[in-house]
């Protein structure tokens, strides 16, 4: 579904991704690595926010562009909705722009997440904003979901709710890429994991294979690989 061939990205003289090759198929994929390992850079490239890189990317047969963007439902690691907007405003934007947006699903999710559709972004807490944007993203019936640090800024109780929301709302034949460094909270939902270290892929395998081959959990193996 996603083919990444020899992708290299530099910020000035600093390498962010070096010769990354990945072939990704549907399922829940953990994109793991410490801060600065290149996770967000790779995600930005897949979403067309970074266009100055070397290599080739194919997303369900499309180059990165409006065709691929229609397939991807993307949750960035920051608030991208303006402060003045509320859920109603955001629903209007998503309804207009994405054919696969399900308004009923969005309203049900708002209800489930205890979010007021009339509340403006500027009056929401960080956790509320994250839940609100996640609701928007998961309300699309997309082929690919890319979630950058979806549980990064919320308390453990909210993490559980967010993970539950993800698991209950993605289509079974779709792909979900979740970038995180909070592995313990989330590793039970992964089918595959990718370890990124200093811009290079050091592991891409099924979770069960890693666990059986290494005889440890993903978090334990992660600590071993990335030990300072």
């Amino acid at each position, binding site marked *: 579904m996603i083919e990444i061939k020899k992708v290299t990205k530099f910020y000035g003289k600093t390498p962010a991704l070096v010769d990354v090759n990945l072939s990704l198929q549907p399922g829940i994929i953990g994109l793991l690595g410490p801060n600065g390992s290149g996770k967000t850079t790779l995600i930005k490239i897949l979403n067309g926010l970074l*266009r100055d890189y070397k290599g080739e990317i194919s997303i369900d047969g499309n180059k990165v562009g409006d065709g691929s*963007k229609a397939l991807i439902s993307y949750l*960035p690691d920051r608030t991208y909705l303006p402060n*003045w907007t509320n859920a109603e405003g955001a629903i209007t934007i998503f309804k207009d722009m994405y054919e696969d947006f399900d308004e009923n699903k969005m309203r049900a999710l708002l209800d489930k997440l205890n979010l007021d559709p009339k509340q403006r972004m500027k009056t929401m807490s960080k956790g509320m904003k994250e839940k609100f944007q996640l609701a928007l993203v998961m309300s699309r019936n997309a082929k690919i979901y890319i979630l950058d640090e979806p549980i990064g800024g919320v308390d453990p109780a909210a993490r559980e709710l967010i993970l539950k929301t993800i698991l209950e709302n993605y289509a079974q034949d779709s792909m979900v890429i979740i970038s995180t460094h909070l592995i313990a909270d989330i590793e039970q939902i992964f089918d595959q994991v990718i370890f990124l270290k200093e811009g290079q892929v050091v592991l891409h395998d099924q979770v069960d294979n890693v666990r059986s081959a290494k005889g440890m959990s993903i978090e334990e193996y992660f600590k071993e690989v990335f030990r300072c």
Partner: protein
Amino acid sequence: MLIKSIKHDLMATYRDFFAIYLALLVAAIIGPFIIQSGQQWIISILILLIFGLVIAIVVVTFITIVRLYYQRLFSAEGYLTLTLPVKTHTTIIAKILTGLIWSLCTIVVFTISGTIFTVIFYFLNESLHFIDMAQILTIVNLVMKTNTFVTLIQSMLIQAPYGFIQSIYSLTLLLFVITFVNTSFIKKGKLAIGVAIYLVLGNLISLALSVTHGAPIEFIGSMMNQTTGNFVDDLSYTFNAGNYAIQIAGIIVVIAILGYATWWLLEHKLEIE
């Protein structure tokens, strides 16, 4: 998608422009009452304020359009705008048309405010009431029959399409510069570099356009006798269609080049922080 993009850009920015328009309308309504108070110092301050407001409107409109381009594309909001399934050229056209719509709205609100100011001022000042509408219409009728009036109006109408295209050019240049400083080419000092490029490039393009053709309209004679200062109504003009065509073609070519350059930067060099 173009209409939807423009709709959402307008929805995202109308608050900024409504604040400007509200300030203008309030000034137009309150202004004549302050003048009516007759206090010389208040009138002086008001004239300064109106003068400042006129400049502020132009500056604030410009800054708000800059913010529209920067915030919607290259700040956190860009994470939404640039991941929408919209073709790059549609995004560019939407941004330019949105800027154009707000520029035109500003001109309209400005004209309405001026009219409101004049009407209220007329009704508040009894000394002006000796002028009745019939007299005004007679004066207007006489003015409209002068060579000077006809010449000025005709030359303005001829230049109007060019003015409209030039507005599109100004917005395209602005969008190009803002895009350029948000690509992988520029790492630091984006604001200073952006301002410098805007000024230098704008002047270079103006210079290049001015040497490609002569003036499309040339005025002959004058409306006043230079020595006596009397109105002589001897103003006319010549119109050179060839120069006009070259002028318009030149600026359209520049718009196309800047538009393509912006598209290329967004497609190949975009680097959102």
